[in-house]
């Protein structure tokens, strides 16, 4: 595992020394802080609006970081051929994939920690409350990002950077529309069309499973079973998708 941690640490270090990451994090922090402005402009409970918009901003920018950094950090390693020196050492290809994935996930986690702290401080200043449920919402967003980062890793070894980014973005969008897809399978007339949509439904993750924003913002009860299933669901997807990434990368000639 030492090689995996070394690759993860190097990936994290590379991202931290890249200005693009700061651009994303800067925007995320600005969005979270400016949720106060949206709260003032909107009718309703200002604190709830701050939390809602803040959590949405955290999710959106985490997704952007996962998509963009995976393409930068994994594709660049292959394209610039620095990967040659890694694979020529006593390192297995699955260790490379896992190391890059963990590095990417740690970058997303660092962004989430920072933006969660900013959101909690904003809520504390505006409403005078310390809402620990925001930590729970952030943890669920992190679970979602684990799944998304696995897809980003798969697409990074499967195709070119821009196409890979678009495909990961598509997984994010479709993943949040899973319920609509399921409804569509019941309402469309053609059996073949229904079957195709059903396949898409089962192949792509239902990212709404990780969305507990409404419950957190409105202090609604949260089912332990739903959380447990969400964790298992994320782990299963990560294992399967990273295995596919490894399968693709294992026999790949690097030129």
């Amino acid at each position, binding site marked *: 595992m*030492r090689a995996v941690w070394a690759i993860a640490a190097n990936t994290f*270090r590379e991202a931290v020394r890249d200005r693009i990451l700061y651009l994303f994090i800067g925007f995320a922090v600005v969005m979270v802080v400016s949720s106060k402005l949206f709260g003032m402009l909107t009718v309703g409970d200002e604190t709830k609006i701050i939390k809602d918009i803040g959590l949405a901003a955290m999710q959106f920018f985490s997704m952007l970081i996962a998509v963009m950094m995976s393409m930068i950090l994994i594709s660049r390693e292959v394209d610039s051929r620095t990967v*040659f020196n890694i694979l*020529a*050492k*006593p390192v297995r290809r699955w260790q490379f994939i896992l190391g890059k994935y963990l590095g990417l996930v740690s970058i997303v986690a660092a962004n989430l920690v920072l933006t969660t702290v900013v959101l909690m401080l904003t809520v504390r200043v505006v409403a005078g409350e310390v809402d620990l449920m925001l930590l729970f919402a952030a943890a669920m967003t992190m679970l979602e990002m684990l799944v998304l980062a696995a897809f980003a890793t798969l697409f990074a070894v499967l195709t070119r950077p821009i196409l890979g980014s678009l495909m990961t973005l598509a997984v994010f969008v479709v993943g949040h529309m899973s319920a609509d897809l399921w409804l569509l399978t019941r309402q469309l007339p053609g059996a073949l069309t229904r079957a195709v949509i059903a396949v898409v439904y089962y192949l792509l993750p239902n990212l709404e499973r990780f969305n507990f924003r409404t419950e957190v913002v409105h202090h609604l009860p949260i089912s332990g079973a739903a959380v447990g299933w969400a964790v298992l669901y994320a782990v299963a997807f990560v294992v399967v998708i990273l295995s596919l990434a490894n399968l693709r990368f294992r026999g790949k000639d*690097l*030129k």
Partner: protein
Amino acid sequence: MADIQLSVRDLQKTFHPGLFEASIEVLKGLSFEVARGEIFGFLGPNGAGKTTTIKAINEIIYPDAGEILVCGLPHTSLEAKRRIGFMSESPYIYRHLTGREYLRFSGELLGLDRTGLADRIAQVLDQVGMSGGAERTMGTYSKGMLQRVALAQALLGEPELLILDEPMSGLDPVGRRAVRDIILDQAASGVTVFFSTHIIPDVEMICDRVAIIVDGRVQAIGSVSELVSDEAKTYEATFVGAVPSDLRTPLEASHVASGASWVRVATENRESLIHELGDCGAQVESLDPVRTTLEDLLMRHYEEAGS
């Protein structure tokens, strides 16, 4: 040959670029062996298959057929990889890391003992003459500095087999000499060095043995002196008068100027050539053997492969 450090047998590789593009057969049954402690040069023109072979040895690409053994172990085993120090062609580096950080990362990948790693890094940096620039990010390095750091990471794990892909390519004379000296030092300490190049003087200067690779096959293998002495002798003759038209030995080249002629003929029999020239009435002024160079040999194999 006793104690083989690197054995490559019947290596084959064909690349399939795309659906509508023709396949490219790069390696066509390549075989050679490198003995412990020798400096082995892998000489060939661009596109001959040198880098593909090195990538196959390092498991960067997968051969279609053939066998590669490193110190008697399959090249894909971690134990075999631990024994190799590899430096790629035009060093691929992390611009965001300093030289020292890069070596620490390389040491982690090699699984080197953490307690001794800092000392080992200092040692190899000193060995390649890079102690001064180790704290700068590699994005600011010159080509020569990059080459040195890349060499340092190859030496870091104290390898038994050092594989260097075009280590002197693109370097100035000072840099080339520095790399050459490091290779010689390593060989003197018992390390086997396998390096690819298309720079012939480097091979002639430092290699114990050399393989000439053209068109994905080893065309000739042996020490430089063996390869060159195996060649048919060529002679250059100068004499007064025109080139005799009835000379039986075929001419390789000829030139006539100011009433004197110069010819180059390929023959192994010097005496018969003298008699032949005499029989033709040529007044021979000089007759000198021409030593076949490695370049001549490479060019001949290249032309044969092309035809």
